[in-house]
């Protein structure tokens, strides 16, 4: 039975990959951006695990900046996805403008908290 699960897993992955290849390019860019932000956050967490959490505010601001921007990017992706009926009438430029504005506000707060 192990062999079938292995084969099933591979089949699953292959189908996911092909499905993913069909997504529009701008959504792929946003996914890449999210992956970048999350990996940066992970690296910061590993660093904190190594050297301790002093100064804690800097650690939090760094991690939350990454997480915050990832969240905002996810929201942007939701708004830009044409399959999403809820946001059909929303112009993509408007969504992008919101994204930029929220990011700027987030980073102001983060910079203040960085210390």
């Amino acid at each position: 039975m192990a062999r079938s699960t292995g084969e099933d897993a591979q089949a699953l992955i292959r189908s996911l990959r092909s499905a993913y290849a069909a997504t529009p390019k701008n959504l792929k860019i946003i996914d890449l951006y999210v992956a970048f932000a999350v990996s940066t956050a992970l690296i910061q967490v590993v660093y904190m695990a190594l050297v301790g959490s002093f100064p804690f505010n800097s650690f939090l601001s760094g991690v939350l900046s990454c997480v915050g921007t990832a969240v905002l990017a996810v929201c942007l992706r939701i708004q830009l996805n044409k399959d999403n009926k809820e946001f059909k009438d929303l112009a993509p430029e408007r969504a992008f403008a919101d994204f930029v504005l929220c990011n700027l506000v987030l980073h102001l707060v983060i910079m203040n908290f960085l210390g």
Partner: protein
Amino acid sequence: MADRRGMPVYFLAIIATLSICNAVASSSVVHPVSDPHRSAAVELFTPAGRSLSLEETYEALRTFEVLGVGKAKLRSDGCLSVLEVLKSAPSSPKDLYYALKVNGLSKCTSERAVFEIAASRLKAALSDASSLLDYHYTVGGLVLIKDQSPDVDVALSDAKGTFQSIKALSQSDGRWRYGSNNPESSTYAAGVALETLAGIIKLEDSEISPSMISAVGNDIKKLFDSIEKYDDGTFYFDEKVVESLEYRGPLATSSAVVVGLSSFASVASEKIDIPGEVLLGLAKFFLAIGVPGDSKDLFYQINALACLENNRRVSVPLILSLPATVLSLTKKDQLKVRVTTVLGANSPPLKLKLRQVLKSDAADVSVIDSQELTHDSEGGFYYLDVLPDNIDVGKYKFVFQILLEDPEHKKSYATGGRIHVPIYVSGVVNVENAVIAVLDSDLGTVDTQKNLDLVKRNDISLSANHLQKLRLSFQLSTPRGLAYTPHQAFLRLKHETKVEHIFVVGNTGKQFELVLDFLRLVEKFYYLSGRYELEVAVGDSVMENSFLWPIGHIELDIPEAPEKAPRPPPVAADPYSRFEVKAEIQHIFRAPEKRPPKELSLAFLGLSFLPFIGFLGGLLSLGVNLKNFPSAPVPATFALLFQVGIGAVLGLYMLFWLKLDLFTTLKAVGLLGAFLLFVGHRILSHLAATSAKLKSA
């Protein structure tokens, strides 16, 4: 003044004791004004370098006048300033007042014209006067003019009105305010006011009715109700509120009240009744200062004492003083007492009786009967030929009483009832039959016994073991042959290692004895065997021959110390080592946190750039392009500005982190944000329009 905060508590204590101490009279010795005061006056009133103001010149001249000291240079310097003030045009009433005072003492000028000008100026100032000090200087100046040049017209235009305005400033407790807009009342001001009111009466006594004078008399009574008192019968005045800016201290305040009282009493038609005890208490307050170290204090003291002495309308205090309060039986000292006035002048004829002699520990029974002291008219003092036989070595209180011979004088002089004076009688205490012995413990038989001669060093040697006892005995007797217990009677044993033990020699009557039972003392001696130096010390403040003699040594044989015996305390090589500088204490408020090594941090910094590079690489692999970038110039500029704007905001955030503060940043963000909004709106709407065109097309 460090005692200011304690004053209210002290004041309460005074009130409590005032009610109790009525008839108990004084018990401290003061000395009347004498040569030390005169030499201090000469020294204090010659300031180095600067010239004296008129007020200071007056104070100096008045003090010299009372003490009978002359100072010509002061007079001539003073006259220069006096003439300047009296002749030149604008002088304040205060300057005129002090100039006239100095003139009265040094007689600089007696030209009528000068006085007339001064009088007219003072009268003009009087009509404008509103505060107590204004009245004081103007009225006082006019009184001085009247004394120095009787022809000049110094009549007051409205004496009654002026009197009433000053009286209106008085308070219900006898104190006075300085002005109608000054709510604080002051005892010093009361003294000044009384002097001013006396001045008005001197100038125009017909206008002032007896009822007004008796009203002021009531104020004086109320003022004297607030007088403060020490236990030994000294009375003084002090302000109720000591924190005010004008607080001058009890000496100045009491002096002002005495001066005011004596001025008023000398012009008042009815007698002001102040108890002699109070006046004597005030005199003692001034005399108990001794010789003040400040010129102003000396002036206050001498001026007040002169008023107390020279005013015949109130009782004149008589001061009892003793040149020596320690009498030696060995030298056969005589008891000598002086009775004088406060300034040192002779008293009227009187008898001085020694009523009682009380021992300090048995304060009820007098050792002697009442006797009279003989008067030595040449020396001016009273003495007792020989001290009565009952008076032995020790501390006593001699109780004197002054009896005036002329019954008329009884009303005009204050003698103070029974006066208690502490006297020390010293003498040689004889030491006899001093014996030191080593006894066997059980039977008490004497093993060795040596006689001691405690008038000099002895050098006996004894030896004992822990089973024996040491006994020291001697007899002390006073010159009169009675028993005496001195303050200290010790035997000291000092070991070779400098460890010492001190024992008190107890007594019954004349016999002093100390028994050291070594069996019980082994632990106290820290089990140290060996040679102990012996010293005997007997001493007292009234013993003329207090002594500390080494008498020899004793070899003590004590068994070894058991395991848990206490160690003797270490004796420091240098007894002053405890005063050395101690180690400095380092204060750590919070230990700094451990920081990671620099290389690790830099490594992770580089590592955190990796995802960004990965992002860029991913973008490239996805095949991103800038094809949608508008080509037309206007939208292109907007697009560029949009990117630049975002970059500027991020750059501003970097600056914010590096050095700016939040407020500047917010202001800049506001500006940039507005710009960015405008630009972004333009470009995004353009893009939206183009994509909509594409869709519809």
